[in-house]
């Protein structure tokens, strides 16, 4: 089959937009870190992007159907690596998230995300009925739920949450029934939703809110609850229509402007026009991905691509939502723009899977 695969079918347009976003990210990382101890981070980011693109091409060569056939082994390996973290993991900032292999640190929760996309795709694409049964629903949920709980125990709520959209997208496309959807949505909205929308809705008292957000990532909020979101809002708002001086970014009022708050830094320096432009680029990328999902050669391919769409959309929603003050501080980076090797690598591997699916759209 692979001889039919050609780079003529590679989604060069998608790659173009993705690299454009990465380019803006590198630019902003440079601007935000130029006078700090992180100066030069943009160079590292370029290396990661280049490396990521390489990984993407490699990934696109492997037939995703072959991967899906072996997915149960990958899934077991993924669970095992998460257990390894729990046992041998190195502790940093109060959480065990990393294992040291050789000289480099490795964060299994990121690649578990990829495995989950594939596993969910495999599981739901092989269902024999149009409508989702409760047992399928619960099995699919458990498939994501188990690793999610393990990541939650690290504790890394941010990453754990990014597993949720994979499951949601799976059950939605897999034939979720209205009553299932409604009842689950109700539980989620009432439960988790109430907890995380608190910065806007003052259901919880200040100290409770603080305790929750501190639990999410204590290192991110040393100056007291709401300070970071407030500074981020000020940064975004002071950017105005066309962008401004960037005093929030350069005066270090904005926390970690090269990673989690890169969108705030960008918005401050490039204004509403710039911020909207970036959102538009992401939207184009997502629509292009959805289009690829529609033209996928089989159900599994669609599920894989839509899994990537779900994770990417969720990241954007939570990260930009945090920057503009809609969401609590969870430490979820903005894919493609935020500084960080794991995040870049994950996105390009995910895109490699999308390319993989696309390049095989005429195969069969």
């Amino acid at each position, binding site marked *: 089959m692979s001889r039919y695969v050609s780079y003529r079918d590679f989604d060069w347009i998608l790659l173009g937009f993705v690299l454009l976003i990465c380019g803006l990210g590198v630019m902003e990382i440079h601007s935000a870190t130029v006078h700090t101890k992180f100066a030069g981070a943009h160079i590292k980011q370029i290396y990661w992007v280049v490396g990521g693109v390489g990984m993407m091409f490699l990934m696109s060569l492997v037939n995703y159907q072959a991967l899906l056939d072996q997915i149960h082994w990958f899934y077991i390996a993924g669970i095992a690596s998460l257990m390894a973290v729990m046992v041998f993991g190195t502790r940093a900032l109060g959480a065990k998230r990393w294992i040291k292999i050789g000289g480099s640190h490795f964060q299994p929760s990121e690649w578990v995300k990829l495995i989950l996309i594939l596993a969910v795709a495999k599981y739901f*694409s*092989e269902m*024999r*009925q*149009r409508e989702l049964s409760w047992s399928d629903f619960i099995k699919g949920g458990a498939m994501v739920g188990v690793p999610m709980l393990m990541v939650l125990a690290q504790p890394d709520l941010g990453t754990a949450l990014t597993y949720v959209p994979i499951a949601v*997208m799976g059950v*939605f*496309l897999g*034939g979720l029934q209205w009553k299932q959807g409604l009842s689950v949505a109700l539980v989620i909205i009432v439960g988790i939703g109430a907890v995380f929308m608190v910065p806007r809705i003052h259901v919880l008292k200040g100290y409770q809110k603080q305790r929750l957000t501190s639990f999410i990532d204590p290192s991110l909020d040393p100056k007291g609850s709401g300070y970071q979101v*407030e*500074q981020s*809002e*000020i*940064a*975004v*708002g*002071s*950017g*105005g*229509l066309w962008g*401004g001086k960037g*005093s*929030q970014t350069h*005066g*270090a*009022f904005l926390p970690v402007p090269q990673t989690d708050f890169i969108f705030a830094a960008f*918005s401050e320096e490039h*204004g*509403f026009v710039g*911020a*909207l432009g970036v*959102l538009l680029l*992401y*939207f184009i990328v*997502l*629509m292009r991905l*959805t289009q690829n*999902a*529609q033209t996928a050669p*089989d*159900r599994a391919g*669609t*599920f894989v691509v*839509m899994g990537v*769409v779900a994770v990417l*959309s969720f990241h*954007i*929603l939570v990260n*930009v*939502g945090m920057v*503009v*003050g*809609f969401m609590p501080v969870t430490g979820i980076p903005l894919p493609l723009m935020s500084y960080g090797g794991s995040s870049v690598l994950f996105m390009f591997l995910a895109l490699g899977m999308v390319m993989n699916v696309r390049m095989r759209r005429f195969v*069969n």
Partner: protein
Amino acid sequence: MFGRDEKVSGIRLTAAQYIILGIFLVLAYRLWQLQVMRSDYYALAAEKNRIRNVPVLAPRGKILDRYGRTIVDNYPSFTALLLRDSSRDLNADADLIAQGLHLDPNEVRARIRRFATMPQYQPIFLKEDITPDDLQFIESHRNELPELDTIMSHRRLYPRNGFMAHLIGYVGEVSEDMLNQPQFELYNPGDVVGKSGVELQYNDLLMGRNGSRQALVDSHGREVGRLGETEAIPGRPLKLTIDIDLQIAAEEQLQGKNGAIVAMDPHTGEILAMASGPTFDPNDFAVRVSRTDWSKLVNDPDKPMLNKAIQAQLAPGSTFKIIMSMAGWQEGIAQNLHVHCNGSADFYGRNSKCWVFFEHRTHGDVDLTKAIYQSCDVFFYTLADKLGINKIAKHATDLGLGQKTGIDLPQEASGLVPSEEWKLKTFRQKWYAGETIFVGIGQGAVTVTPIQLARAISAIAMGGKLVVPHVTNPVDLPPNYVDAAHYLDVKNVAIDPEGWNVITDAMDRVLLPEGTAPSAHIAGIDIAGKTGSAQVVSLENRAKHKNDADLAQNGWFVGFTPKRNPDIVVCALFQGGEHGRLAARLATQVIKAYVEKQRRTPQKMVEKPKTDGTVDIGGLWNDSEPGGSTDALRAGRVAIDLPKKRMPLATAAPGVN
């Protein structure tokens, strides 16, 4: 049932697209809200974040003596302050701050509340003159407490041991009461203002205007740049008419005593020295005086907070006899009055005793001159009886008694000159002629302050020139400084030159062996003066309560030198000093310090007139104009040998240099 290759529902894929579109629209709307609709608000918030207004405190003007020697200086220190333009909740941090700076948390909160109505850029001054410990705390909490900062300030350095404390006064933080008064409306909470003395009187000159510096800061409060600076305008230095050397002499004399000494230039009214005892150390209040220390000072029966030179209103005793003499001469009675003193005399059915009665002596035949240098009470009882209270009151008032002298110091007392009208108004009672008798010797209702007495005697010694005492020279003040305009006002009190001659000649004998204070005599210095011993209770009652210190008499002395055309008038009050001659010893030591200092500075000397007869040392008297114009007084000096031992001159007030 459908196969493995069945396509995923297209509707659901489209629905997913719409959900994503929905998410993006919400985010875009929020961006619109923040960046377009409320962009001004956030731009301002960003500016507030990065710009910090730090006040630059203006140093207060130095206080100098007449020769420019430093009396009050400043020294640099650090003040802890709370910046209010940060987004921090100050009340939430109050406990930590109070603990770190060793303050009372409630007081910190009260301060935060007090500043609530002030503009944001106005910081809260928390603690002045912080210790290295406090500074360490502030430096190590830069991140946790970005609103806590320090600035360099200039603190008052007053002379040590309360030297000149009453005249100088002290400074303190402006009080809430003061801020509510219209004349202090320009002051801000936290400003350091004068609270008493010269510091209060000339606060507007001494106080500078604080500047401010707009600093660019990062999120850790570190300064990364500077936008602009409004410079602080330092306060003006204030030159007093005080001569530190004389002040030192006066303070030395009052050491451990209860009383006051005033030295004045009778030509101009310039105060050369002004001391009050016991004293207080204004350096103790410079930071913050504790409640117990304060009430101790206020409730002390010796009243250390009172500037007795201008605030003690006491019976003048026999010093009042000089005023009586002048009144009597001007009314044509004193020069012709001859009294025989038997130690006592009967007036209005009451036997009034002369002070010699208690020494089992009599004065015998007494005229005005003898009555003055021997301080014969019977003579002045008689004179008072002949004058009547209203005439006494008129002349005493002409000489500035019973009214404020107008000295440029706050809270001057006015004293009291009794009259028929006064008694009717105050007590709704008729004046009894018998009361006049005791006013004649400076007892009864009449009270004076040391400064009033110095001024009145100075006027008599100067042939009627009644000056306004002042501690600053108007020429050293800004030209438009209205308050100072009247300091050079001079009133001429009509005094017959002959009477003036007789009275001062008699006063010149007070320190001679035949006078009342020969022990205060200083060889080679020509001092004219008058002692006074004012009773706290009548002498008869006093005899019953022997050795009761509370009932001890107040000693007075007013003297001047030289006898003619004097250069200095000194008034000494020695409360509980028993006898005027003890007060005289205090006063003459100040005069001695003055004369010795004068003699070592080069003077314009005049030739000894080649006429027969005596020459008054220190002055030439030209009485060609019988009208008594003081313009006829011409200063001149004849050479006098300098003493071998020289008194060292001060370079600054003690504790300041």
